[in-house]
Structure formats: C-alpha cells, structure tokens
C-alpha cells in the first residue's frame, strides 16, 4: 500500500527531523534511495526545485516525492505525514507545557543531538559529493571522475565564499542555482 508507506515514511521524517531545512536531508535521501523512489540525480533535482520555490523544504520535498510516485493523493498523504508530528507536538506544548524549554533535561537532550544533526548533514553532503563527482558509492565501484562537475562545484563555491567575504552577505541560493544551471549548459555545449 504505497499511500500508507508514503504517509508513515514522512510521518517518521517529520517526527525526528530537528534543525529545520537540511536537518532532514539525510533521512529523506536514505528513504527515497532505499525504496527506489528516486535516483540520486532525481533527488538532487528535486532539492533544487524545492529550494527555488517558496515554503519549507520538508513540505516541498514531501509533496514532490508523493506526487512523483502516485500523483495528487500521494502528494497529499506525504505532506500530511510530514506536517502532522509538528502540529501535534506544538499543540501539546502550546496547550499544556508552555515552559517545556525551561526544563534542564529537555535542554540538554536538545543541545545533545545538535552535533548529530550537523554530522548527518555534512556526511550526506560529502557522500553525495563523492558519488556525483567521482562516481563512487561503495566498495567495488570503480572511479569515474567528472571534471565538469568538479569545475562547476569549484566555481559555485568560489562565488559564494568570495561574496561572503567581500559583501558580508549570503549569496542568494536561488541565484547560485541559476548560475550553476548556466554553467551546466555551458560545459555541456562546449
């Protein structure tokens, strides 16, 4: 029952994804790859679309993945699944335990998992980097170096870092996506 699977999967993602936005990337990635819902390339395409459209990344990803599997109803159950834990948890906090965050135990657990979230985001990015640029996923694979991808990565990184250093502001992610799209066309045409 794909609807139930979608709902439960995104319910789980909604319930354990701390740290907003990219905090749930590792979990969504392993879920879609395990279920063979998307390939790594499709997953990265979806993130790009989710990032360049308004709204929370999690909701966008849930809608997109649900719709890609079984259409409108799939999108609906996946989105409901990802929202429901937040809704219930916040409702309980707002109605019953307003000063939840003042309990030292809660605070220490919340700050205790922060390095885990950071670690998961970084390792997901590193794994995807190696997969996409060196074509290597796990033991037994041969390397196939993609110099075009590496060149685009270095240009994008240089623009973002230099912008941050000289303009003291973040280079808009959407502009960065547009720039990399132009670079993608350029390296494929020449």
């Amino acid at each position, binding site marked *: 029952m794909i609807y139930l699977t979608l709902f439960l999967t995104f319910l789980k993602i909604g319930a354990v994804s701390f740290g907003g936005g990219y905090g749930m990337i590792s979990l969504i990635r392993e879920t879609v790859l395990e279920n063979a819902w998307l390939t790594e390339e499709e997953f990265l395409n979806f993130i790009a679309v989710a990032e360049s459209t308004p709204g929370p990344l999690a909701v966008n990803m849930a809608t997109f993945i649900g719709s890609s599997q079984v259409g409108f109803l799939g999108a609906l159950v996946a989105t409901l699944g990802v929202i429901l834990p937040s809704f219930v948890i916040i409702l309980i906090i707002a109605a019953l335990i307003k000063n939840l965050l003042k309990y*030292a135990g809660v605070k220490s657990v919340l700050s205790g998992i922060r390095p*885990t979230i950071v670690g998961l985001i970084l390792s997901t990015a590193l794994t995807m980097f190696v997969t996409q640029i060196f074509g290597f996923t796990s033991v037994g694979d041969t390397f196939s170096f993609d110099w075009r991808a590496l060149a685009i990565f270095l240009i994008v990184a240089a623009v973002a870092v230099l912008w941050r250093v000289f303009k003291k502001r973040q280079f808009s992610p959407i502009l960065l996506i547009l720039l990399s799209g132009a670079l993608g066309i350029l390296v494929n045409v020449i």
Partner: protein
Amino acid sequence: MPKFKTCLKLFLVMFKIGLFTFGGGYAMISLLESELVSKRKWLESDEFLNVVAIAESTPGPVAINAATYVGYKLAGFWGSLAATVAVALPSFLIIFLISLFFDAFLSLKHVAYAFDGIRVCVIFLILSAGVKMLIKLEKTVWNIVVSSLVIAVTIALSVLSIAFSSVWYILITAGLALLLYLFSYFRARRKEKSDKQPDEEGKQ
C-alpha cells in the same frame, strides 16, 4: 463570531507568509516578525522570541511549528489548524503543479544540461549549510566527539553499503545526552545531600 474572523485573518496572513518565504524557515522568521509583531501586534516581541525558540528546537519544519504555535495562541485549536494549513498550502500547490510538468521539462536537452550543473550546486548548498551549523556549534568535548563520530561512522557504513537509518543516530545521541544529564543531576543531588548532612533523611 469573532473567533472565526481571527481564524480567517490568520489563514490569510499565514498563506501570504507561506507564499513569499524562499529559503526555508529562517527566512520566514523575519517575515513572521514583521507581520505578527510589528504590523499586527498579535504577539509581544519577547513572546515571539519564545515562539522561535520552541519552533527551532522541536522536530519538523520551523515554519510549520511557528504557524501552529501562533495560531493556537491567537485562536486555540482552530486557529492552529487554519495557520498550519495556510502556511503549507502555497508550497503544496506550487510543487504539485511543477511535479506535473517536471519530467517533460527535464526532457528538454538544455534543461537537462542545466540540471547537471544545478545538482552540483545543491550539494554545495547542503555542504555550506552543514559547515555554517558546524561553525556555530559550541566547541565542547561532546559536540566535537559526537559530530566527528557521526561523520566517520555514516561515511564508513555508506562506503561498505551497510544500511543504518539516521533515525538511530538521533535516538542514540538523545539517549546518551539524557543519561549524561541524569547522571550529573543525581550526582549533584547526592553531593548536596551529603553536604547538608542527615537532617533530610526521610526525603527521597
């Protein structure tokens, strides 16, 4: 019925916020602040800070969490329902429409070329989000050990293609953090007790 009116207003404001926040939860916080605190005076500013703290430290998208909380504060359960649905609705509609045409769009040669570059950019965006969070992380022993262990173990397992869900890393560190907290809590209490000597004997 004044409550219905509040819900309707909440719905419209949250819909607008959902429609105009690019770049996820943190971008939304400034928009929420200007709508709820400065413009409409629905919340005091220290109350708003509390909402942000709760939204950031509970699981789920910051935008959804903040909307649910604000909705509940202003108009109870129905308020929270209206606000939550409203903040997610624009994303849902836009992404659903895109998903209908996305495959056809990708089958255009130049679009496919563009996405070759865009995928690389997404990896950079995730990496830089992670690095930013790493820099902000307090440099305690726990944070350094846990984050490097998580990175090392996840990469090792993925290279060996052993499946181990991210959920476990979160649950295990949460459990360990709680144990550490309880341990230090009880040790502090015992010390307090032994300092005070036996006049509190009967108390647990």
